[in-house]
């Protein structure tokens, strides 16, 4: 009797994304297996000023949070706009993917994605300047993420030069 119709079982918000961690130790198959069983989420597009407390409050809405690891700039050791949220159960993490992903924290739309599991070292940004890679190359001005992207900052003329 318990026929499952694929057409009625859609749960697309918990699907794994296209992203694969290039630093993952293991093959694609192993990584995907871990992603599909994981209780840990990567959270991106945070403001540099978003605190662990704020993350905890928001993500507790989908279940009990086991731990939060705030992503840090590798050089400055300050928050650089991402974090990991680990739940005690997969079910709670799935609820976060369904109902917290794509909503706002600190006025910013945040993005959650499955993570294969936190390992020491993964809390650091991998951009050349110490922060996240995405902040190396972006062209826009984002005051909550250090202003202009790092590359753009190098090429930006300083204020005084053109003002005559």
């Amino acid at each position, binding site marked *: *009797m318990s*026929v499952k*119709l*694929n*057409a*009625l079982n*859609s*749960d*697309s*918000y*918990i699907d794994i994304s296209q992203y694969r961690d290039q630093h993952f130790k293991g093959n694609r198959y192993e990584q995907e297996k871990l992603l599909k069983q994981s209780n840990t989420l990567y959270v991106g597009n945070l403001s540099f000023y978003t*605190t*662990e*407390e*704020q993350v*905890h*409050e*928001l993500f507790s*809405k*989908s279940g*009990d949070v086991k*731990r*939060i*690891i*705030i992503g840090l700039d590798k050089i400055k050791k300050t928050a650089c706009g991402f974090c990991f949220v680990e739940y005690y159960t997969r079910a709670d993490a799935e*609820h976060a993917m*369904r*109902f*917290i992903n794509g*909503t*706002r*924290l*600190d*006025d910013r739309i945040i993005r959650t994605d499955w993570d294969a599991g936190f390992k020491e070292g993964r809390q650091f940004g991998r951009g050349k300047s110490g922060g996240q890679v995405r902040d190396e190359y972006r062209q826009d001005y984002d005051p909550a993420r250090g202003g202009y992207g790092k590359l753009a900052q190098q090429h930006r003329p300083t204020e005084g030069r053109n003002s005559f």
Partner: protein
Amino acid sequence: MCSFFSRKKHVRLRGQAHKRRRTSEPIEIEDRLESLICRVGEKSTSSLESNLEGLAGVLEADLPNYKSKILRILCTVARLLPEKLTVYTTLVGLLNARNYNFGGEFVEAMIRQLKETLKNNLYSEAVYLVRFLSDLVNCHVIAAPSMVAMFENFVSVTQEEDVPQVRSDWFVYVVLSCLPWVGKELYEKKDVEMDRLLSQIEGYLKRRVKTHVPMLQVWTADKPHPQEEYLDCLWAQIQKLKKDRWQERHILRPYIAFDSVLCEALQHNLPPFTPPGHMPDAQYPMPRVIFRMFDYTDAPEGPVMPGSHSVERFVIEENLHCIIKTHWKERKTCAAQLLSYPGKNKIPLNYHIVEVIFGELFQLPSPPHIDVMYTTLLIELCKLQPGSLPQVLAQATEMLYMRLDTMNTTCIDRLINWFAHHLSNFQFRWSWDDWADCLTVDLEKPKPKFVKEVLEKCMRLSYHQRIVDIVPPTFSALIPADPIFTYKYVDESASSLPGYPMSITVSNAIKNRASNEEILTVLKEVPNPNQEDDDDEGESFNPLKIDVFLQTLLNLAAKSFSHSFSALGKFHEILKTLANSDEGKLHLLKVLYEVWRNHPQMIAVLVDKLIRTQVVDCAAVANWLFSQDMAHEFTRLFIWEILHSTIRKMNKHVQKIQKELEEAKDKLEKQQHKRRDSGDDEDMDKNSEDEEGQLEEQIERLQEKVESAQSEQKNLFLVIFQRFIMLLTEHLVRCETGSVDISTPWYKNCIDRLQQIFLMHHATIQQYMGTLENLLFTAELDHHILAVYQQFCALQL
């Protein structure tokens, strides 16, 4: 309708007979059938009628090869897509008209499925199946008299003796809830029998017990909208429908367009259906109260909202609930489906949607789905209807605020959480000045209390200064405290305190990475204010030691959650040693509160860690929350969040060990079977015996663990209920002797909180009913307190 078969072309190779590649086709075709059937009725360039006609043709052609698959799919959509009921009954009607045997087989399959769902306690799905069958009468698939006969069998359950009321409730509900669809047809064919049926139902409804109702109502007041018990409301709606001579104009009925075809079809008789008897492990649905917050005066322009006793209201609400049930996991789809409700132009759809969503969010004992889903769904709806839905939502919020005085505290909790989270997605924009009235009353009253708790939650999602900035200066009394650490031994001004010198020593020791033993040695020097002399190793409860160590440690770790968690983890052994008595645990929690009293969120997460690392037990937390020291915080939301989180941890712990026990038992059984089946291999036998012996030992240990955990769980509930009874009795006696009205804000809060324990943990508390009744909720108890217990019992009867 386009042809959807893509048969591979014959591939004729030179010199070879042509081959047809068929291996992948059946699966493709089955998937296509599923997809076609599931999607019929959705947005399309063709009319619904022409799509149904086309699909019926396609399915008829496939019956020779795919009959059982088609039967299964149709049975499943009947069970899982009730919001599209009439689309699928029409389809079945068309198929029956083309193929009588298929119609008969479908009916049989449905009956089999109905029996299965009832056996498996799937009562809401069973309702949808019966409703489907009843609508098949309209499609000339099932003969009306046989449907009436089934209803008569259902209603005869009300004559059963010694069965839970919720059982007969369900059978009555099923019959009544089908009548909007099929009442007209059944009355036309069998009015005498139907009148008898309704009269029996009326008699039942008059004699059924309704003790449970107050516990399930969102508001205690009857104005502006009475919170009706669900069967009473449905009965009133059916009465009105009958008075209107069963004229029902809301339900979409595609079969009307096919009447000329369908009335030529031969009908089937339902086999006689005897409702399965009552089984002790049956879990009938709990009674409900119908949530209403809007009426025709609320939608300012456009279509009028159907009245509370109109059958249209019932059908709309049912369908909207069904849509949420089907699509809750995918909020964009859910929002889109809600907003494309058929017939939406004739009703104020946004109001219905908002009312149904809040109805679910506030449902007692608990919402059908996780709370945060509703927040996100409302945000999606606002995105899809930015010009209209936010206004309805604002209007709803305003109305809910105005009626806070009579709202159930559990529902207020959910409203607080929803509103703060919602605001955090919209830059906290709100016209706070509209609520300036809350500043003129006692701050313990529901309205200012609500605003205060909302602002506290908003702060947790942002930061203190943000809250100061978003509210008018007049609201300053309601702004939460800046969540900073309060250190007793902060500087020389504290030097006269007995623990001050030690706090500096301990602080330095920690900073210099002293070991646990070294720190314990240092702490030995702390005098015990409870004792005259050091008559022991200094091991007994020493409040000053706890105070100095914990204050100092938490001060050093105050920077963030992670710092504090790390500190608790590092010095876990010391904490366990210091708090190894009930008094020690209580004092530890007291000190924790003292230093973090401005940061309830921190208190909650630290208590959570202390329980998980077994530094304190659940009963200690309960005793602390109910202690005199915490009396001034008793009505604050964070207290109850901590208590319920504690109870949940206890429950999860018991479940975890029970699961381990079950798994071990299963393993043993498998092992024993293996041995039995393996024959006479002596060596294997010996190894097997050893393994079994180990498993038996493990099972014995786990059995003890389970018993011990259950005992702890029972004790926790006893402690909590005892404390409630003490507090409430004290209050009631005091009021009585002083001839004062008992209904203070504190009392209302407290009695609702007692009720909340029952509601939020009803499944667990069930096991301990006997003890509760014998020890605590006896006849001698004040009737105000006893009433809560009796209402709870009535939920299961």
